[in-house]
């Protein structure tokens, strides 16, 4: 190509491209760029109806916010994989963590600081102080939005109660009754009268802590790295002795002692367990991930000892944002949290919309929970959705009529998971050794927990 021809060709090409460039710029200016966020959806293995219900919510949100593209990803909180997902940059933009972990993650800046965004919400000041405290670091930064709270509860199988000659409308109200009912169920039905999580994955320690709270004990005193571990208090000893009696004296706990969160729920749904302790909100999981027959389901408040410090261990879930989220992405993430988790708690139209989607997809509405804001707001939100409630509310009456009279206490604040982990082997020892030295084991666990607290782990 000669130089003249080359220059002419170049000029023509540039001239031809100019309008295209201009048109592109104008298009961008006229239409806002789309922001994509990934959001935690349902647990792996959830039913098709549950997935459809979630997708319906996403579609509605995207219609309302055309510049936001929401991509749901299957998700279940797992402390073991969180660090790996964080290191690999594989966390969803919005995901959920239990109360147990949120503050620790926030202290280590492993989730985003969303203080400014949360304080803009009209209902920010309505949060119960104890609830928003679960998502607030020691420096006062808000690192998540608590959207669901529960109290630990006693779940029981009404069919096994009946089979054992017990009244399913009168669940046990003392630990002595729990023990005698468990024995009766085991003897008359051949199933475990009472079961308890016992795996070395912090769940064994979590449930032991729950029982200890109901007797009046606490696992630590103080705050942060200067907190004192009190695992070896007399109430924990009492809780373990109760466990030992049911396991070895009464033989009322069946043959499986290594249950963890999903497996104990599955065994309960399969009719193998008379009574067990778990959060009051597990009915949703039982419906979405097991073949529970709703007719067998019963829930009651945990028995409390008659002393001032006895109370129920609370828990809940917090919506959080991955730590590197900024700008328009952070705005989109907050809009999703507001829409999907919060709006239905404070806005009638949103509550009705959510209930309709849930019912249309055969998902539970009206699962017992604990107020995020105040009891009045909670009752009002429940009254909005009353026509849609489809859970066996009559079978939940013992819980609903009793739990609000109980004192709800948060989990141990310092090194929560490490405290539970230190207790795991103690529970396992009681399950597997009739002569386990409870005092000595608790002493060792206390040392381990104290070291973890001191090191901020």
């Amino acid at each position, binding site marked *: 190509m000669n130089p003249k021809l080359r220059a002419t060709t170049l000029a023509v090409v540039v001239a031809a491209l100019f309008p295209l460039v201009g048109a592109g710029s104008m298009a961008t200016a006229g239409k806002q760029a789309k922001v994509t966020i990934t959001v935690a959806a349902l647990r792996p293995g959830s039913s098709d109806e549950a997935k459809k219900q979630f997708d319906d919510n996403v579609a509605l949100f995207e219609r309302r916010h055309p510049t936001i593209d929401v991509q749901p990803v299957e998700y279940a909180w797992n402390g073991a994989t969180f*660090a790996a997902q964080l290191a690999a940059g594989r966390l969803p933009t919005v995901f959920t963590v239990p109360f147990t972990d949120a503050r620790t993650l926030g202290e280590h*800046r492993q989730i985003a600081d969303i203080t400014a965004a949360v304080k803009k919400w009209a209902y920010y000041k309505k949060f119960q102080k104890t609830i928003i405290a679960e998502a607030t670091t020691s420096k006062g930064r808000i690192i998540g939005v608590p959207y669901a709270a529960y109290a630990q509860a006693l779940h029981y199988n009404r069919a096994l109660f009946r089979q054992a000659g017990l009244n399913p409308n009168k669940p046990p109200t003392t630990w002595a009754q729990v023990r005698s009912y468990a024995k009766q169920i085991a003897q008359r039905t051949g199933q475990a009268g009472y079961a308890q999580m016992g795996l070395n*994955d912090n769940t064994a320690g979590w449930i032991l802590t729950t029982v200890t709270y109901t007797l009046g004990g606490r696992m630590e005193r103080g705050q942060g790295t200067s907190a004192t571990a009190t695992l070896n208090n007399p109430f924990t000893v009492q809780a373990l002795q109760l466990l030992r009696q049911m396991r070895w004296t009464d033989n009322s706990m069946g043959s499986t002692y*290594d249950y963890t969160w999903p497996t104990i729920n599955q065994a309960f749904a399969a009719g193998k367990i008379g009574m067990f302790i778990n959060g009051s909100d597990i009915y949703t999981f039982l419906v979405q991930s097991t073949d529970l027959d709703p007719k067998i389901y019963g829930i009651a408040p945990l028995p409390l000892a008659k002393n001032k410090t006895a109370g129920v261990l609370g828990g809940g879930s917090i919506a959080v944002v991955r730590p590197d989220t900024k700008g328009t992405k952070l705005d989109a993430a907050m809009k999703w949290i507001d829409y999907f988790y919060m709006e239905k708690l404070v806005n009638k139209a949103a509550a009705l919309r959510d209930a309709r989607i849930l019912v249309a997809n055969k998902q539970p509405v009206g699962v017992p929970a604990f107020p995020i804001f105040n009891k009045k707001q909670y009752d009002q939100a429940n009254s909005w959705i009353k026509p849609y409630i489809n859970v066996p509310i009559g079978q939940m009456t013992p819980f609903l009529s009793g739990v609000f009279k109980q004192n709800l206490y948060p989990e141990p604040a310092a090194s929560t998971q490490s405290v539970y982990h230190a207790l795991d*082997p103690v529970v396992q020892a009681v*399950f*597997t050794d009739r002569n386990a030295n409870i005092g000595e084991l608790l002493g060792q666990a206390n040392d381990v927990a104290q070291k973890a607290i001191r090191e901020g782990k």
Partner: protein
Amino acid sequence: MSATTRDVQMAVAAKARRRERLSPVIWVRNGGLAAVLFALPMLVVFTAFSWYPIVRLVILSFQHTNLIDPPTWAGLQNFRDVLNDPLFATAVKNTAYFAFLALIFGYPIPLIAAVLISESRRFRGTFSALAYLPVVIPPVVGVMLWKYVFYEPSSVGLFNTVLGWFEIGPYGWLQSPGTAMPALVLESTWANAGATMIIYLAALTSVDKELYDAASVDGAGLFRKIWNITLPQIRGVLLVTFILQIIGTAQVFLEPYLFTSGGPANATLTVLLLVYQYAFGNSIGVGFGQAAALSLMLATFLAVFSVVFMRVTRSWSTA
């Protein structure tokens, strides 16, 4: 020509030859470049996936990290933390126990199976395939099979059903500190024996048949032949599988992780499971330094053990 002049000339010629040998052109012409090009993919893969992670692990073992902030140097603190952790001794003891049980039961079984199969004339292929079958089953599937079919603690578990016929049990195989570790070893032996057996079968084919014929003429029976001919002839392979077994059992993770999570009461907590717990047991991931330190300690121990073992057994492994 004087001797000195001749020496000088020879030195110059040698230098020229050396230069010629070192010249890039000669190096390329002699295939040096091709060799490097052939080795390059392997070097890249090894650097990216083996050597770089090893170097990172060593660095990490001297650091504190929370995966968000830049890591800080911690000196030997991570190593001190590991050594002061009461679970470290438990994990070492449990790992040694697993290795010991695996050695007692897991080491001879593949050898006995290989000898018996090699003696079989008609069904050698069938027996080999059957023995190798567990190796083909995905490890997680194998563990789940044993956990929920064989070791199921209620009376419907396979082992408990059999014992039930004699009115014994049922037993919680994985739920008792006394039986949990042997239960893990049993499954592990089932899962891994096939691979070792294939190695022994291959080694047995190299044994000169005339030795057996001669022994038969001398009136030797089967056990005499195995003891005096088979074992000495394949002792090199036996020593290699021995060291591989020690290395493998020292790194046992899958079985305790999937069967028991280290329980009951830490009875099956192994060194590698402790590494995992340091790194992932707490969601905040602040134990990565300790996990790296313990990994490095284990790797160093195994390297030293292997070198000493190879030195000690050098004379035994050669004919």
